[in-house]
């Protein structure tokens, strides 16, 4: 037991050292761009993991999660540019706005029976938001987007991404910790039960729609955090953050990484971001490579890369014990 615990802690220590050393090593060994990529992975990992509360735990195929990512991103930007809010306040308001959007969109969507209709309705809501932001020039600056959003010096990305790396990492770790707690809480268990069998859930006395709506809103909240992190990373935002392809990508990250493993979606996010940036530097046909990879994954290991690793790990552990 004590041996196990030490082992447990040594893993955490190794992970912490890697995460702390990573940006310095990347900056020295390669370039700033890689620190930027690392932050991008952190942002997408948080987005993918918050999305997994809806898809992996709740079994709801939302095809409109870009809406909450985008609302978070735009809320942070607009509050600073239009209302001159200080950055920390704008950063805190962003997820609240995203959660509100989640509450409204969720309110209509969770009533719908059937995976297909749920996907279409959430997609429609997200595209509606996209069009509004795109067209409402006087308020959102339309497709020009918002540039040069000021951020405090300590996390400024002007000279180095390292400050922002640690900011994003800290925020994401807190959020991921909360998501982990929620996943293993009674509420997380109810969600998994609901995913498995909505009818049985009703007949243990559960109001299925309320539980779905709460999960949807929580997920929207954390997606909004990811969106705000993205805005301050780029110090700009454009309607693209709300585009449906973002909703699609976050689903693919879940599939790729594995939805049944807690860190699976984060792994999927890392793979997607890296593949994207490396393959696009060699060929413009990145989408083809992505498509082929995904087909292979769905056919060969539907549990995702994370699921595969978990399987190997448990076999390895089993062998060690034997």
């Amino acid at each position: 037991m004590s041996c196990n615990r030490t082992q447990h802690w040594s893993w955490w220590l190794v992970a912490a050292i890697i995460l702390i050393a990573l940006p310095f090593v990347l900056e020295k060994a390669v370039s700033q761009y890689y620190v930027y990529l690392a932050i991008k992975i952190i942002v997408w990992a948080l987005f993918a993991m918050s999305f997994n509360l809806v898809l992996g735990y709740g079994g709801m195929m939302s095809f409109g999660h870009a809406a909450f990512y985008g609302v978070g991103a735009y809320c942070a930007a607009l509050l600073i540019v239009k209302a001159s809010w200080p950055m920390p306040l704008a950063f805190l308001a962003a997820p609240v706005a995203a959660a509100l959007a989640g509450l409204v969109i969720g309110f209509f969507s969770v009533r719908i029976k059937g995976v297909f209709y749920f996907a279409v309705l959430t997609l429609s809501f997200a595209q509606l938001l996209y069009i509004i932001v795109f067209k409402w020039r006087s308020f959102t600056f339309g497709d020009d987007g918002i540039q040069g959003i000021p951020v405090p010096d300590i996390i400024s990305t002007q000279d180095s991404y390292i400050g922002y790396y640690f900011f994003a990492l800290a925020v994401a770790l807190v959020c991921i910790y909360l998501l982990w707690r929620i996943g293993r809480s009674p509420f997380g268990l109810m969600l998994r039960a609901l995913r498995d069998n909505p009818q049985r859930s009703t007949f243990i006395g559960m109001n299925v729609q309320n539980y779905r709506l709460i999960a949807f809103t929580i997920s929207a909240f954390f997606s909004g955090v990811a969106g705000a992190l993205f805005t301050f990373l780029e110090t700009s935002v454009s309607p693209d953050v709300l585009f449906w392809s973002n909703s699609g990508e976050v689903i693919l990250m879940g599939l790729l990484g594995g939805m049944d493993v807690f860190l699976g979606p984060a792994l999927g996010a890392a793979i997607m971001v890296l593949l994207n940036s490396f393959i696009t530097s060699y060929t413009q046909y990145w989408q083809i490579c992505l498509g082929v990879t995904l087909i292979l994954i769905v056919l060969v290991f539907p549990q995702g890369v994370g699921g595969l690793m978990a399987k190997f790990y448990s076999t390895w552990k089993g062998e060690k014990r034997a």
Partner: protein
Amino acid sequence: MAILEARDLTKSFGGVAAVSQVTLAVEENEIYSIIGPNGAGKSTLFNLLSGRLPCDQGRVFFKGAEITGMPPEQIVRMGMGRSFQVTNIFPRLTVFENIQSTVIFQQGKGLNLFAPAKAMAINETESILEMVGLLEKRNEAAGVLSAGDLKRLELGIVLATKPDLLLLDEPTCGMSPVETAATIDLIKRIAVETSITVLFTEHKMDVVFSISSHITVMNFGRVIATGSPEQIRADGQVQRVYFGEG
């Protein structure tokens, strides 16, 4: 006092009456069964009583309060639990989690977001698993259980909702004679030990007569007889319809 009362329940599907003017009253602490050939309307009647389907006509009373048109989850929370003919469980959860999730929900802790669920409701869950004989299989994924075990697991889930009235739709469906006998013993024990009222449908006659205090016989959506096992056995119409005699 009747714990469950149905008055003139009627339900049609596309002009065909699946349940027609059914009236029945289930007394507290009894085992009541509804029998009838396939297609007699037993399952539809259960769906009307438990709120899964809205009825076209008629009213349902549970513990003296009218529950006609109430959403099913609310009826469950009032103390009516049910099983289904095709078992309804949580296939990707473990056997233990199937019961545990229900116990936690029943205790009103379903919306707790941050406490670890793993350590909750262990004793209650184990005692229910023991009652339905699944304690050894606690760590198995529920989806891979045998048909008999699935039925027992569903019964366990329903018991975990702490019902006062148990609606069991063909609880021995698909079971071998040995399993059937064991299940019937279990239902009897539950009814006696926990003073839960049981209403169940069945088509195995010997099963019904051995444990029921009241029996209602249905055919083509209608009640054709109601009474004690002796009365039903002696009923000429029942014999014609059900036993194919006369």
